[in-house]
């Protein structure tokens, strides 16, 4: 069995809204192994995004334990959380979130710069990552000149550059048509398997099931293994 790259133990999240306490996550426990693709499904308001934010070290849990890339994450240490994001997590967003002023190559290179890789090394790795996702001929295109699928490929290259053990994807096919969405999912699976990433995909898209090793459902803040 592959090593765990993401481990969540009894994570709870409570939001205080005025005098109201809203318990969004009610004790979530789950693992993602290296090379494993896990789909997280659930209706709106079920806590998917909150869970994604917590495992992405953007939001801190009210209680529970979190381990990313073999490192225990301490919720009280803001710099530590940022360091985990920098070193161990790659993000793919629904809206791509590319920097409009940067070319495809620069988008990937910049994220490497943030991760501490600079100069020629960053440039070469960014180029490799884009060639890996099939955009070797679009290196110097600005996001506005790329199609939705190409933008998402750039986002995937950006998430994978710097070799983070965990990749988190938030509705990665929501803005893509069926054919392109299918290609992106195939690419996701291929990269996860080839590079041994633990991939957690939050989605409403039933097609994600096709590439997932495991599908996990979330409803009212609790997990349930889906069929």
């Amino acid at each position, binding site marked *: 069995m592959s090593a765990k790259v993401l481990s969540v133990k009894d994570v709870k999240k409570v939001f205080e809204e005025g005098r109201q306490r809203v318990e969004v996550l009610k004790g979530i426990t789950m693992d993602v192994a290296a090379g494993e693709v896990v789909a997280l499904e659930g209706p709106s308001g079920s806590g998917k*995004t909150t869970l994604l934010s917590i495992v992405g070290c*953007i939001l801190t849990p009210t209680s529970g334990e979190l381990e990313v890339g073999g490192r225990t994450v301490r919720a009280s240490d803001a710099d530590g959380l*940022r360091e985990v*994001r920098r070193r161990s997590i790659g993000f793919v*967003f629904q809206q791509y*979130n590319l920097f409009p*002023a940067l070319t495809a190559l620069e988008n990937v290179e910049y994220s490497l*710069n*943030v*991760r501490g890789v600079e100069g020629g090394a960053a440039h070469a790795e960014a180029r490799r990552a884009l060639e890996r996702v099939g955009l070797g001929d679009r290196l110097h295109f600005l996001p506005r000149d790329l199609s939705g699928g190409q933008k998402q490929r750039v986002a995937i290259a950006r998430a994978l550059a710097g070799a983070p053990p965990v990749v988190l994807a938030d509705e990665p096919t929501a803005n893509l048509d069926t054919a392109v969405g299918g290609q992106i999912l195939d690419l996701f699976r291929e990269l996860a398997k080839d590079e041994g990433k633990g991939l957690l995909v939050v989605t409403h898209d039933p097609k994600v099931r096709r590439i997932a090793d495991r599908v996990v459902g979330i409803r009212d803040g609790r997990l349930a293994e889906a069929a």
Partner: protein
Amino acid sequence: MVSLARKNLLHDRLRFFITVAGVAFAVTLVLVQVGLFMGLLDKATVTIRNASADLWITSRNTPNVDFAHTFPETAVLRARSVAGVERAGNLIVAFVNIQLPSGATEGSLVYALDDFSGWNLPWKVTAGSADDLKRGYNLLMDRSAALRYGPFRVGEYRELQGRRFRIVGATEEAASFTTTPIVFMDYRNAQELQEQLRASTTYVLVKVAPGAEVARVKAELQRRLPYNDVFTREEWAERSRNYWIASTGLGMSMGVTVFLGILVGIVIVAQTLYTSAVEHVKEFGTVKAIGGSNLDIYRILGEQAVIAAVIGFVLGAAISYAVRPAMAHIHLNVLLSPSFTAAVFAGTVLMCLGAALFSFRRVAGIDPALVFRT
């Protein structure tokens, strides 16, 4: 290293242009206004700096070189008797009316002395010779006088205080703070022009002997002439300058202009950077989500501010330096020293970085979780 700051700045060219134009405007305003003021102040001390006197003896409380008061000319004899004085000579500086060919009466500032070459006054004669001043009722007129009096030629006559003087030559660079044209003439001729100048002078110029200590000679002169003031050349120049800066409100007026220039710059840069920060909130959220810190974002905004400062300064300084010949043509000297220009550059960078601080507060509170919102 990819510069997100530079790329974002150049991506929105209109905003970039407005920012740079704002900085350039502020820089031009400060450089030209202060340069003009420095040019005027330069005029206030130009004769002091060019005269070869080490010490100036003035009447008590004379505020500046132009507004001279009389005292007995025999003071020069006492000055000459002080040990350490190589030579001393009288200098009259007085406002005298001049009759123009048009019939109009204007003011002129007469500089009158006995030994022109000995005191290096005038220091730039472009036509004729100062030696001719002693050969009758002659005068040298500065070229800048043409602006006030109209064109003049060597050999023409002008009437000063009812007495006819022949223009025997012309000088350059001899200008006063008040813009009253300077004319040079013989000491005795000047004394005949005004009753109050008879047997009186307005300054005694002193050259200290080689090896003598200026401070010691000055103290001894002050002791021997208790009803006069004695200044070193630097002290006298500073006193003349300070009079115009402090006593006339010009310094305050210039300060307000500089303040307004800086304020305009800060407002424009702060406003454009802040708007830019607000419009790029999602991008900054992404920077944070992928592991960037507030410091990384401050660096982006700081770099943008510095880029705007440098380009705006270069543009503003180029405009300021370019207008100098045109200003000189109308006898307005925009004095821009390298040190002042460097100070304005440093101030511009600081101003833009200060303006960027307004945006820091906005981006510091960006929640990286917004990257998950659609």
